[in-house]
């Protein structure tokens, strides 16, 4: 694992926020690693465990539990479309279908354990997320860290084009 100095410093800083118990820094460290590498490998799990003085299983069980952690590489832009009720009523499932069609993503390959699929050109990946706490402005989605509201299916193409540049 090649951890650049700046990342190592951010990890040290994160750990310092938990003066009572280093283990509490598990989620923040995993977030930093995932942000840097795009997803979490077995190496990242082992590295995190040893950095926090834990067994790898203590970290592995987090990566497999929390939907926010990924074990495979996402696209350059990772899209999370809200699946839940208010957005579904506003058309978020149509949005999902349209995004998949436009990016050439086949969601049939997804499952509970592999929730997202990547486009053939590697630019986009898509998954459903549960209620993103903006139910009044659905359908909503996240593209990496950017939040988008009122993204009806007819706006799917413009959304993708915004990131295609």
């Amino acid at each position, binding site marked *: 694992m090649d951890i650049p100095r700046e990342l190592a410093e951010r990890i040290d800083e994160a750990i310092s926020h938990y003066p009572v118990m280093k283990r509490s820094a598990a*989620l923040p460290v995993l977030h930093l690693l995932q942000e840097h590498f795009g997803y979490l490998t077995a190496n990242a799990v082992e590295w995190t465990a040893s950095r926090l003085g834990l067994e790898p299983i203590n970290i592995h069980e987090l990566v497999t539990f929390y939907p926010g952690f990924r074990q495979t590489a996402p696209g350059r832009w990772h899209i999370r479309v809200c699946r839940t009720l*208010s957005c579904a009523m506003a058309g978020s499932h149509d949005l999902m279908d349209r995004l998949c069609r436009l990016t050439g993503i086949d969601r049939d390959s997804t499952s509970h354990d592999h929730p997202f699929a990547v486009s053939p050109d590697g630019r986009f990946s898509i998954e459903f*997320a549960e209620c993103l706490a903006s139910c009044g402005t659905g359908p909503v989605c996240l593209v990496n860290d950017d939040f988008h509201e009122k993204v009806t299916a007819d706006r799917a193409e413009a959304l993708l084009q915004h990131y295609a540049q």
Partner: protein
Amino acid sequence: MSRSEVSYLEGRQPHARERRLVFRNIDRVGWSTALSDYLADGGYEALKSAFGRPPADIVDEVKRSGLRGRGGAGFPTGVKWGFINPQNPKPVYLICNADESEPGTFKDRYILHQDPHQLLEGMIISCFAVGAHLAYIYIREEFPEGARILERALAEARSHGFLGKNILGTGFDLEIYVHRGAGAYICGEETGLIESLEGKRPYPRIKPPYFPAALGLYMCPTIVNNVETLCNVKHIIRMGGEAFARLGTPGNTGTRILCVSGDVQKPGYFEIEVGKITMGELLNDLCGGPKPGRNFKAVIPGGSSAKVLRAGERFRIKRGDEQVEIGLEDIPMDFDTLMSCGTMAGSGGVIVLDDSRSMPWVLHNINAFYSHESCGQCTPCREGSLWMEKITGRMIAGGGVPADVATLNSVADQIAGRTICAFGEACAWPTQSFVLKFREEFEACTDPANLAQPANPEREAQRRYLHPA
């Protein structure tokens, strides 16, 4: 204290029936998350006045205000704080629950993204009151921008001496850190949250004995409060507990933010005095009524876990010493009335369904949420939530059998009351109430006559329950 006139962005002006306290600065013209804006508006004055009083006084003030938690359960905040034993030798922690993930709820989002210092001021006062020197804001991972805004606000507050050692020369020390979740709904449940903050899977702890106020973070006394609750503390100190208690209705004091989504003309957030408006006023006056040509069919009043209410249903409630019968639109939006109507005010998320919706389809969407989010510790919840999803799934796909209606209900009945945390109830209540109140739709979509192929045109009205709205 200088509190200037506020104007709001075009199209985002509060409704005349609103009473903006916590949401005063949301969509405000010329407002930013910077500390300078907050200070220019009288920010951190409540903190300074709190520091001039003994902590026990602050707890009493909050008790007098009658404030009830805005996270879901509506538990009196002052009473919760009072559970911290002053003689306890262990450190005390405070956690702000910013996990906001109950479907239908979207209020904390705006506070976190537009008014972070209000939350910090409320938190610092609360920490001073309960004697906490270390606090965390547990924010859901899907608010990355919110987390950055909070980090910046914390840095500003530190550099102005509102955080750190010897705050404002009072001798009081406090550090607050942001902790990001990782996309799991169960982290909103306070003991699951605590496990998550300890770096573990967020498996909720059993109560008793693990009441956070006794055995919380690192097995120390811990106060967990919702974002909106902690913001209210600032206003209670600013205006006094008694003045706060005059807002709203007795036992249901102050304001609260209602989030309306689904089938209304103008969905959105509305800060209202608790119990001062009815469901009908909320949906018709504030939200512009049903969509053209539609009628309201049902309302889920407090986040997706709350039991559904049906249009036309009659409710018996107490008004003064009298028992009166009221309809859906007459229900005052407060904790106690919604509870006597057999549901709950919950998180303030009001989801509206009109007559274009198939109730089995709606329930299936809700069931899919709970089966995905069950933490899996308790067999009834883990297995039951999955079975409920499977059954509603095959119902709306046209593969149901008549016995499914009773099976669905019995699965739900076997979850509620038999689990470690309240998620068990949260996932059983939708199924129980939907099947009870909209039985005909569930029966229609499992009736072999309706499933016969080719389609019988006379059955179209029934068959529509099979298809997604």
